């Protein structure tokens, strides 16, 4: 392609206009979706604690104690150095009687420092083990609960929630919790303790220098607090730009044929360039905030240190302080200013964990709208009745089914036909109780499905979807998906009935051939036949076929029709089809239009009437 890609327009940083535009972009991005800000963070924490962390409270306590012990290490070093200077190296300055411990003092210094190091390393190792094992358990239990929730949730939930979002709830979000929740809750005790006893330590070392240094702490914190909210907002905006770029690119690259067919390459590049220009603006805004904060803190810390050294040196001159005191004080100062930043960054980590934890709890709290019934359908015969059923998918204006009533006797073979969107598949969804009707009742074996045990219902009613989902694994694993304990001979019998056996035998490892992720290595017709074999293996009382042979050629379809007739002899079957040839052998044909049952009868009966069926027969040359 000859077009040069459009360049990202440089943000006019510095100018008033540029700054306002960046702010406007951030505001717009934040307004578009409201982050699930934890309205009640305390409730979330309480729940996290009671449900997931309480069993490990011993480890939490131990980790906190270790952390607190650990936070004394810097002060230990400050003290040993003071000892070295005042009692070993420069006893004259100290003016103490037992001056000059000499080489014995050096040895003592060495031993003390080694001891502190040993403690330091032991703390590190112990705390890491405690935190890692605790968060590992948290992750395991949380993931288990989330996965169980997904397994229990209503089908409608999956219609309105993108797959990617659910996966990131269970996987990525929980990773964030693993990396931040436990560790930051434990680690935060360190800076807190340091901030309490650090000032005390400074006061002990020299109260005159300590008072002004301690007064610096709030200034330090204030700089952080003023910028924190802005940094957070900018961060969220940046994440949104990124996820938007991601989903846009994914969609367009996946549909590159369409982009090219409609010659939209340049338009699409321009759209991405626009996103990228916004990305640069917002990213630079974030850099400026973070660097500005760093600069302010560095200036404050440099000022404090220089001032202390100046006045400290004067105190040494006047003999009111030893050099060792001064060195120890400077050392200790670093470990008081440091914790302010530590504390704040743990706070931010906890905040990001908070969003994620809240999202996880939201998913766990999602209501299971289809309430389980108790009546078992085991041993029933396959009678079906729809009694004045009206059903509307959530968010749709028009009902998918509008007062539909019909009854099907055990063993009957019924075809469902009608234009797309007429409600054929919805009948199947209600029969499997993926949804409950708003009005009327669906009965299987005489039992209202709202009172039926869902698992027992699905043991006896089986659906083969038009575009079946296969799982990565072997062919055998997929066929036995509904009956894990099936014998190989049964598997082969089911595959033969679905006209799939010959294909399998032509594969390198027969039934143990891997079919790849989502069964993508199979053609549409092969996938349909595999799905049919899976269904047949479970020997359902009622079999629902949703245009299951649409991707098969006529000869194969005819063969399958024949074997199905034998296999399904005494069983009830409902088949959605576009083909008259399939429908005409059925005991009865139901015609649906816009959610209503408009015609019902045998091939001959319907052909005699004016309507959809006759029109379609004429079209397909079956009159």
């Amino acid at each position: 392609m000859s077009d040069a890609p459009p360049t990202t327009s440089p943000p006019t940083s510095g100018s008033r206009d540029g700054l306002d535009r960046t702010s406007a972009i951030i505001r717009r991005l934040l307004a578009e979706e409201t982050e699930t800000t934890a309205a009640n963070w305390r409730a979330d924490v309480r729940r996290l604690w009671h449900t997931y962390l309480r069993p490990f409270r011993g480890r939490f306590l131990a980790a906190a104690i270790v952390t607190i012990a650990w936070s004394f290490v810097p002060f230990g070093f400050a003290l040993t150095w003071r000892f070295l200077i005042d009692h070993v190296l420069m006893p004259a300055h100290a003016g103490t009687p037992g001056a000059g411990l000499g080489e014995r003092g050096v040895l003592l210094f060495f031993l003390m420092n080694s001891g502190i190091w040993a403690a330091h390393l032991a703390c590190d190792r112990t705390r890491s083990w405690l935190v890692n094992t605790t968060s590992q358990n948290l992750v395991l239990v949380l993931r288990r609960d989330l996965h169980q929730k997904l397994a229990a949730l209503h089908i409608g939930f999956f219609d309105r929630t993108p797959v990617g979002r659910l996966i990131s709830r269970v996987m990525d979000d929980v990773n964030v919790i693993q990396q931040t929740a436990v560790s930051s809750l434990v680690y935060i005790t360190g800076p807190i303790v340091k901030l309490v006893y650090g000032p005390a330590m400074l006061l002990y070392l020299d109260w005159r220098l300590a008072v002004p240094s301690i007064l610096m702490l709030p200034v330090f914190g204030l700089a952080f607090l003023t910028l924190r909210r802005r940094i957070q907002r900018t961060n969220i905006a940046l994440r949104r730009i990124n996820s938007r770029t991601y989903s846009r690119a994914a969609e367009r690259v996946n549909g590159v044929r369409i982009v090219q067919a409609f010659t939209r390459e340049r338009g699409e590049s321009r759209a991405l360039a626009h996103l990228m220009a916004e990305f640069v603006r917002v990213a630079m805004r974030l850099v400026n905030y973070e660097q500005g904060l760093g600069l302010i803190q560095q200036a404050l810390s440099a000022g404090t240190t220089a001032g202390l050294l100046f006045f400290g040196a004067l105190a040494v001159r006047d003999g009111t302080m030893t050099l060792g005191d001064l060195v120890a004080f400077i050392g200790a100062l670093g470990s008081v200013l440091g914790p302010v930043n530590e504390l704040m960054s743990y706070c931010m980590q906890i905040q990001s964990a908070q969003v994620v934890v809240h999202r996880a709890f939201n998913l766990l709290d999602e209501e299971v709208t289809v309430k389980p019934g108790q009546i078992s359908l085991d041993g029933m015969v396959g009678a079906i009745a729809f009694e004045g059923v009206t059903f509307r998918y959530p968010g749709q204006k028009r009902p998918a089914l509008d007062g539909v009533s019909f009854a099907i006797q055990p063993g009957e073979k019924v075809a469902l036909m009608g234009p797309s969107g007429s409600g054929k598949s919805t009948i199947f969804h209600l029969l499997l109780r993926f949804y409950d009707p708003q009005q009327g009742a669906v009965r299987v074996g005489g039992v209202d499905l709202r009172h039926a045990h869902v698992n027992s219902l699905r043991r006896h009613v089986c659906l083969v979807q038009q575009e079946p989902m296969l799982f990565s694994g072997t062919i055998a694993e997929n066929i036995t998906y509904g009956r894990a304990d099936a014998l190989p001979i049964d598997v082969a019998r089911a595959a033969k009935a679905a006209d799939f056996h010959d294909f399998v035998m032509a594969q390198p490892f027969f039934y143990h051939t891997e079919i790849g992720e989502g069964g993508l290595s199979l053609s549409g017709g092969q996938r349909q036949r595999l799905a049919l074999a899976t269904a047949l293996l479970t020997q359902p009382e009622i079999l629902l076929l949703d245009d299951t042979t649409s991707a098969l050629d006529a000869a194969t379809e005819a063969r399958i029709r024949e074997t199905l007739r034998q296999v399904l002899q005494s069983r009830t079957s409902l088949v959605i089809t576009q083909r008259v040839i399939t429908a005409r052998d059925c005991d009865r044909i139901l015609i649906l239009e816009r959610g209503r049952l408009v015609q019902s009868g045998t091939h001959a009966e319907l052909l005699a009437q004016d309507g959809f069926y006759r029109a379609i027969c004429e079209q397909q040359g079956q009159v």
Partner: protein
Amino acid sequence: MHALKIIARHLRPYRVRLLLALIGTALFTFFSLLSPLLLRHLFDRVIQPGHWETLQVTALLILLVPLTSGAIRFFNVHLIMLTANRFVSGLRLTMYSKMLTLGPRYHGEHPSGVLVGRLMDDVNMVQRLLTGETIQLLVDIIVFGFAITVLFVLAWKLALILSVTLVLYVVVYKVFAGRIRGASQAYRQLYDEISGRLQETIQGVRQVRIYNREESENALFLSRTESSLEKLLISNMSSTRLSVWCNGIAGYGSTVIAATGAYLVLRGELTYGDLYAVDNYVWMAVNPVIRLTTVVARLAETFVSLGRIAEVLEAAPDIQTPPAAPRLRRGRGAIRFDGVHFGYSPDKPLFTNLSLDIPAGMTVALAGHTGCGKSTLTTLLMRYWDVTGGAITIDGVDIRQVNLQSLRARFGVVPQQQLLFEGTLAENIAYGLPRAPRPRIEEAARLAEVYQLAMDLPNGFDTIIGPAGVQLSVGEKQRVAIARAILRDPMVLIMDEATSALDSESEALIQKALRRIQQGRTSLVIAHRLSTIENADRIVVMDQGRIVEIGTHTELLARDQGLYRGYVMQLRSGGEPAA
């Protein structure tokens, strides 16, 4: 290394900024290294000898040096980040534009997930390389060099002890690195497996429910998660052990150095100020070495990413157009395949010397079994592939001699797989003509039987469709795709099995509409339904890359031994003869 060269070429426009950034980095690093020396000066030259008159100047320096370093750092980071962000945005855009122009061969070999991964994750790695690793490496080298030099100057004996410590450190790292890598790779693999299965079970949630597999999927997930976390714990604890060892070596090393230094101070070989500075510089020399190992591991990862990026940038387009190719003017749309040779791979030719004339304004149906080359014929016409011999002309112009965009702009395509993009219904219909006025969109919608559908949606034409919005059925998507093609008012209409998923009634409606819009327009229809084929002005029957029969429905049906006759019989007896 080749990949590095390509990235370097893309970095060229930024070379002045990058140079400035490097100088700035060196400068602020240098300033930040001075503080211990200033303190040494304070202790040895001011406080101990009692030169109080220089105290003010020294204190001022102690204030100014970090301030200067901080200020340089602020502007330097701004410069680096701005350069990196612009470079990365530009790189992403170049890759994206490239991906959108590459042909079906490339996209067939690279699934979209892989390409998007390169566009996002790998480019992020490059950003980290520019803003993180490279700068860190530079800073570390300067700091290490400076610190070790100062150490040797101040106290070479202590510097020797440090060198031994560093050697020990490298040995320990070697021991642990392999163990950590092994465990973390094992974790990564299990994690990917779990994510993959999760995706399948969510996408196939109906399948899971139909077969009552909720419990067993839960159990499988739990056991896999358990073993993945075991691997993670091993990897994390190995990392901890490594860091404990590293800190131990560094800590005891520095303790030995400090004690030895103190002994030297007692012997008068060293001043206290020296010792203070040495203790600070020991850590400045050790930290870069500890970091180096992680930086090196990251660099290795980044090079893999660089290779993948370079592969996209270097991919040769299948289709080449002369730079100053004229635009294809809107004509009558007479298409001619003139002795065309073509095969997807050289050893398997599909077409040898295939010729076909499609007069302007005619509707031609392509019939034949799957794999006979019907679809290939249309992709050649739109120049997704180039013929290997012969020529294709439109109104007498060889399609290789005209601007590619102008060629494709003359077609309206309804492809086999309908793809709608996330956005409103109107945006999707107007995809090929984004500035189309609303009445034209509505008109196209009416023609393709989408209007009623739009009226049933909550916000009409402004309803968001796609994963985050209302989901359309296969047949509905197909009608939207038809509306999209109609809106362009194309010179040539190509429909590739476009109505296969429609139920007969909607197909009949669309057929009526199509007949209207096919008038005065050349159209090529690949259909598996009799109703679609019957109405064509001419039917071309293909078999294994050859044209075997041409004629109208009645003409062809009259031939006793004709392939078409058999084909029609098959259609009559059971729908579509597709594989």
